[in-house]
């Protein structure tokens, strides 16, 4: 069929799975190196890419990478809750804040090493966040989003009003990590581990039950499973990831303040998820790793920065609404060609 014949006729893109995709599902993937590398190459690309990036950057961009890693963790936890549990959680700032304050305060008052305080703050912050969100778990959609968005704002005002935890000034001169390499590899390691752990989790029974709560919570109730228990567990897991980011941030900055409850931590993960591809878990991480440096790079434009930033986002939503990762996955797994309808 030549191009002339196709003009004026309706066309559509036909997509077919590549043979190798089918062969790599299940145990068949172990049949040959070709099949195994089909699965391993993209994964290694991500892992090695993340591990090698710091070597190519100067001090300033290394710092940006660290912050991008924190946003990546938040985006991951946002995507997990939104896509697999049906809770649109805008409480990212609360995760960061609670993890950050626990780690910072412990380090300030007890003088413990980060390798002790970060795990305590991760778990402690997650417990606090879960308890705070517990009464709202019965809400859904936009209602849960609004309430979860309120908590960071609320906490900031409590801290200011009571003048506790350093009040508006925050606490300065906290301990930091020994050097920039620890800075970077702690967060990159955490990102890599959380992405793969999360991907594994959502394909386990636990993840299937969560998805089924999102799709059809009545059937889950009728199956004798308490959806509150499962939602609580899911929020706890998402909060673990977020609170680790917060605890890490206290040490990265060596400073603790109410800006850890800033709205950015709640909002940017959504943008990253939209850009990276909802429901892919890897996508939001990539989205955050692109958006954060981009926002830095646009600093040179002064006030125009926000406009450019928004234009890029709008461009993504209009032209690639399914997100980066979904597009990449499709290109990788499927043939595409035009055919006449």
């Amino acid at each position, binding site marked *: 069929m030549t191009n002339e014949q196709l003009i004026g006729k309706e066309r559509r893109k036909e997509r077919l799975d590549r043979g190798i995709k089918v062969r790599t599902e299940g145990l068949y993937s172990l049949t040959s190196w070709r099949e195994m590398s089909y699965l391993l190459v993209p994964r290694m690309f991500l892992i090695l890419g993340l591990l090698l990036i710091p070597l190519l950057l100067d001090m300033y961009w290394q710092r940006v990478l660290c912050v991008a890693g924190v946003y990546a963790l938040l985006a991951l936890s946002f995507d997990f809750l939104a896509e697999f549990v049906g809770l649109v959680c805008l409480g990212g700032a609360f995760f960061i804040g609670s993890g950050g304050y626990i780690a910072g305060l412990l380090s300030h008052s007890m003088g413990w090493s980060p390798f002790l305080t970060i795990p305590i703050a991760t778990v402690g912050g997650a417990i606090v966040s879960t308890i705070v969100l517990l009464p709202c778990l019965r809400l859904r959609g936009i209602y849960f989003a609004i309430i979860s968005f309120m908590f960071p704002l609320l906490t900031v005002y409590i801290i200011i009003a009571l003048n506790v935890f350093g009040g508006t000034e925050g606490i300065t001169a906290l301990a930091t990590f020994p050097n920039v390499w620890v800075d970077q590899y702690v967060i990159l390691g955490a990102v890599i581990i959380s992405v793969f752990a999360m991907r594994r989790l959502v394909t386990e*029974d636990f993840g*299937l039950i969560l998805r089924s709560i999102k799709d059809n919570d009545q*059937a889950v109730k*009728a199956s*004798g*499973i308490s959806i509150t228990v499962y939602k609580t567990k899911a929020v706890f897991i998402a909060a673990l990831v977020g609170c680790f980011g917060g605890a890490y941030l206290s040490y990265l900055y060596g400073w603790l303040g109410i800006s850890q409850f800033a709205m950015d931590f709640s909002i940017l993960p959504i943008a990253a998820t939209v850009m990276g591809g909802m429901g892919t878990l890897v996508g939001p991480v990539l989205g955050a790793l692109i958006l954060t440096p981009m926002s830095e790079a646009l600093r040179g434009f002064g006030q125009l920065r926000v406009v450019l930033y928004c234009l890029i986002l709008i461009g993504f939503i209009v032209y690639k609404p399914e997100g980066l990762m979904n597009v990449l996955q499709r290109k990788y797994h499927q043939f595409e060609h035009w055919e006449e309808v």
Partner: protein
Amino acid sequence: MSAEVLLQVTKINKSFGGVKAVQDVDLELPGGEILGVIGPNGSGKTTLVNLITGFVKPDSGEVLFKNKKITGLPPHRIADLGVTRTFQIMRPYHSLPAFKNLIVPLNSPRIRRSRGGKLGDKDGVAIDILEEIGFERDAYVPYKIAASLPLGYLKRLELARCLAMKPEIIICDEIFSGLSMSEITTMIPVIEKLQMDGITIIMIEHRLRELFRLVNRVIVMNFGEKLAEGNPEEVMAKPEVREAYLGTEAGQC
């Protein structure tokens, strides 16, 4: 048929705003029976199911299961006791194989307890349950993606979800609706077999002729009230029942 009463509903009431969805309905269900509940659209049949299974809280009245009050318990606690139900609207996991759709009930605390805390080979158990309910294993039907299954199998899948709970009572909410004659014909023995296995069943139905092949006793509901109760022929002969079905040849449906 054992005479022991498994489920007892007394004077149950529910209004939605000004609409009295269920009024003073009594119901007694001996173990091992199949009870039919019929009535025109909007007569409160599904609300009755929701009241029994805890999805809707009654305004007054109570539900006893094995002489223990279950009104006010949340739905998952009632299901945990062994009172399960199907839904009119089925939403299976479209992207997963049929047997994976039973993962949710097979992870329930009730099943966990019955296996002494261990869950074991869930996929195997799921496939066994599906085969029992008419998913031909030889034709690999249990392995098919749920989205590709015809309605008849989806209805069975919904029933299988209940069955995976090892229930004592299954409440089937219009399990025949939307099925072809031949699909129903293959479904009836499945339900008879469930009864023989000792499961007590309540069937909410519009397809009267097929229902009457299964049940010995029906309850007719209209405008939220119980209109009549008794064996199918007697009940359908009553003038008020005929009237409720628009005065037409009710039995012919």
